[in-house]
């Protein structure tokens, strides 16, 4: 019965990771985001920074949980035979799993871009680093960065929704792709 309980634990962690990533992104984008417009811009920026810092911890935690719980799930349910060898590309189940892994990579790359490229640019605006002559340039860069964060977040949301669809197809049948 050990594999059954490993499977329960893996399912639990997998469900939790999906909920944190997808539901968290929806709440950040459609609940916290719009509410920020009702407070002064400077305060909104501080709030945006702090909330993003906390949320990014959740995002990276769930992105790390996806492959760990997914692999546990695959092996505990003895489904690894369905994706061994060339079955990974020749069967619907294998291709769907491959699609999910590919989309997970897209989420990780987007996460890296937001965390290590765009967020530092936004923080620079808040701290006013760069001196007086660079303030307008920093503001412009930060504005661009904020727009890109918003675009990438929405792309991530779409990708996450599609991953849920692929997951549902694997849970009930043989996959989708």
């Amino acid at each position, binding site marked *: *019965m*050990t*594999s*059954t309980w490993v*499977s*329960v*634990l*893996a*399912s*639990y962690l997998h*469900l*939790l990771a*999906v*909920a*944190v*990533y*997808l*539901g*968290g*992104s*929806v*709440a*950040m984008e*459609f*609940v*916290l985001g*719009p*509410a*920020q417009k*009702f*407070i*002064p811009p400077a*305060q909104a920026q*501080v*709030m945006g920074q*702090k*909330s993003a810092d*906390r*949320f990014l911890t*959740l995002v990276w935690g769930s992105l790390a949980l996806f492959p760990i719980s997914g692999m546990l799930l695959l092996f*505990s*349910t*003895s489904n690894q035979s369905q994706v061994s060898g060339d079955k990974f590309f020749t069967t619907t189940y294998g291709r769907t799993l491959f699609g999910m892994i590919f989309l997970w990579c897209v989420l990780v790359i987007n996460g890296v871009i937001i965390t290590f490229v765009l967020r530092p640019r936004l923080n620079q605006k808040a701290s006013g680093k760069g001196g007086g002559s660079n303030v307008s340039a920093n503001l412009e860069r930060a504005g661009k960065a904020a727009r890109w964060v918003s675009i990438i977040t929405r792309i991530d949301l779409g990708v996450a*929704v599609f991953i*849920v*669809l692929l*997951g*549902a*197809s694997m*849970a*009930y*049948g043989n996959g*989708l792709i």
Partner: protein
Amino acid sequence: MKVFLLFVFGLGWSVYLGGALVMAWVWRPLQKGLPPGQTGILCLKMGRIYKYLALVSLGLVAVSWAILGLIDHHGVLIGSNGVFEVGVSGLLRGIIGAAVWLALVGFVLFMGVFLHPSSHVRAETNQGEAGREKMKEMRLKSISRMNKVLKAELATALVATLIMALSSATVIPGGH
């Protein structure tokens, strides 16, 4: 059809649970660092959106779960040999699922309809010092209750997720 229903179920549940987690893990701690006036405005605006988001997602969960139950007869999410399905009878599963769902809707409504509005009450100018103190006390009590209800809601939602995991994890005969 079943894949689509499970997709809707997963989407609804993810949006609901993720939203509740963000409210507890991101928004609640953030409130401490904001001026009370701005916290009040943000709380009011977010509370309204979150209430509808949570209710719509729980609605999607209920509808998809019910249709899946009707299609499958035994009222399961994934298959008839899940840990939950093997260990618990069909009627009891339905009762547990409905009870958990009702509890979650109850938490959202209790917070959205009673606690949230009373945490934003303001004293009338003619109520005097005593009136203002009373209103402040009421607000603080509501906020404290809301924190407790939010924790209870999260705990219930996490238990519900465990039930889903039990339901989707297939019993492996002789598995070790």
